[in-house]
């Protein structure tokens, strides 16, 4: 649980140079709105959005680095955590608050599989649309060969079986 918003302001103004704030998923939008509009904080510039896969704690953490263009202070790191399992790995999008999150949240979705509820256009951005996995996750095993898209060659499949390598699920589905 996070403290009441008034306390957040005091915490941040006390050590604005190096602060981070871990909030619950349900409260993320309210906290973000507060940080952006509060006259003493005015964190109007969401500089950097990224995700980190903490596989030992079984969570994916999305980090927003906030600065204030109006008051020239920052950064405040706003952190939101979601479970690693793909079905539960979702959180509210902050794109309605800061437009600059749009592509960066798409990137976090593409590479980490975090689904952002309320994002206007949540599609893959760096990987191609047919790609199924999320390659920046710590347990991701790269396939042995991309050349046989869309269907794997028999030798590659046999080699994958021998060495324990993987083939992308999309390729196997196409073969069915």
């Amino acid at each position, binding site marked *: 649980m996070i403290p009441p918003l008034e306390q957040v302001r005091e915490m941040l103004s006390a050590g604005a140079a190096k602060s981070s704030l871990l909030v619950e998923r349900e409260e993320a939008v309210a906290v973000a709105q507060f940080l952006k509009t509060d006259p003493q904080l005015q964190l*109007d*510039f*969401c*500089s*950097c959005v*990224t995700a*980190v*896969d903490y596989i030992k704690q079984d969570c994916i953490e999305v*980090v927003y*680095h906030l600065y204030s*263009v109006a008051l*020239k202070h920052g*950064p405040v*790191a706003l952190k939101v955590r979601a479970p690693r399992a793909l079905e539960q790995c979702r959180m509210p999008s902050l794109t309605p608050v*800061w*437009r*600059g*999150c*749009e*592509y*960066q949240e798409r990137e976090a979705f593409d*590479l980490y599989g975090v689904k952002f509820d309320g994002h206007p256009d949540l599609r*893959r*951005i*760096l*990987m*191609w649309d047919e790609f199924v996995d999320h*390659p*920046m996750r710590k347990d991701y095993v790269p396939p042995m060969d991309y050349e046989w898209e869309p269907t794997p060659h028999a030798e590659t499949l046999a080699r994958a079986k021998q060495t324990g390598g993987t083939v992308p699920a999309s390729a196997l589905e196409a073969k069915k």
Partner: protein
Amino acid sequence: MSATGIIQTQTLEVSLGPQHPSTHGVFRMDVVLDGEYVVKLKPVMGYLHRNHEQLAEKMTWLGSMPYTDRLDYFCSMTNNWAYALAVEKMTGLKVPERAEYIRVIMAELTRLLNHSCAIGFLLSDCGAWFTPVLYALREREWILDFFETVSGARMMCNYMRFGGVRVDLDDASLAMARNIVARWPAFLDEFEKLMTENEVLLARTQRVGILSRNLAINASVSGPVARASGVEYDIRKVDKYGVYDRFDFGVPVGEAGDTFDRYMIRILEMREAVKILEQALRDIPAGPFIAPEAKLRNFKVPAGDGYGRIEAPKGELGFYLVSEGGAKPYRYHVRPPSFINLTILEDMCLGQKVADTVIILGSVDIVLGEVDR
């Protein structure tokens, strides 16, 4: 012609790219056109994606320094600096004064090189086929020669190290840098005489692709693009990293936020960069060029996370790093300015003619090595 006498029209979807010469690399824009006017535009990127971040997570801290060169391959010096700065923040390494001056000299030369090419290519996009960019490339060659003399490579310099730089500048190379700086104002005057008051340039760029100040801030736009829209925000002034607080320089800010302002802001920034270079080359102190306690082998970073950022020529270049205390980063994230500046490409292009989208994209100044990573 239909029965009512009104011409029936429909919208047309055009894919600009990825091999389009004016997209500055393998970049695609899906555009929906109503006649000649843009009604929808979606950028498509990822053609150069190589998962740079995952590569770096599998290498030692220093091992990914040469890879940062390949992000924005015009500006390897500033990429190196941003990464080194983030790591120095986490380790608390103190950078010697001479190294800080050398970094400023390298970064500002990179700014000259980047901006002159950016406006050169922008003018190529306007249809001034290769004459302006030829002048820009001629001047860039002097700087690349200097980088080669100092670091051994023209573009992939791999020059900075945690706690300093890799090689010192000797008197001969300092004299070389002074020569470059001395000839730059004359080049800018010549360039401006040819270009700035050119009627065709004014007609093509003024009131084209307007970006409002509020949208620029809300969409995390940084660098010259944001400043052209009136956002007075320069990380060299705000964070005062390195020794930037010692130099006397101004931050030019635009008013209209149109393509012409984005062109002009780069000319003005080059004039300010020349001022910084003159002061840095005059004041550079003697001393070590790398911190004596900086280790090249068995380099470890204390556990924790850190975010370091600099004012790269294209905008805010940041590195978000997470360490577990080991020899490799646990998480390595690049905040690429050209990727995030593309967020507002659609807003700037809506209602413009299709020929103007190319100029607007040129004025944002992207490099695909950095967009796609």
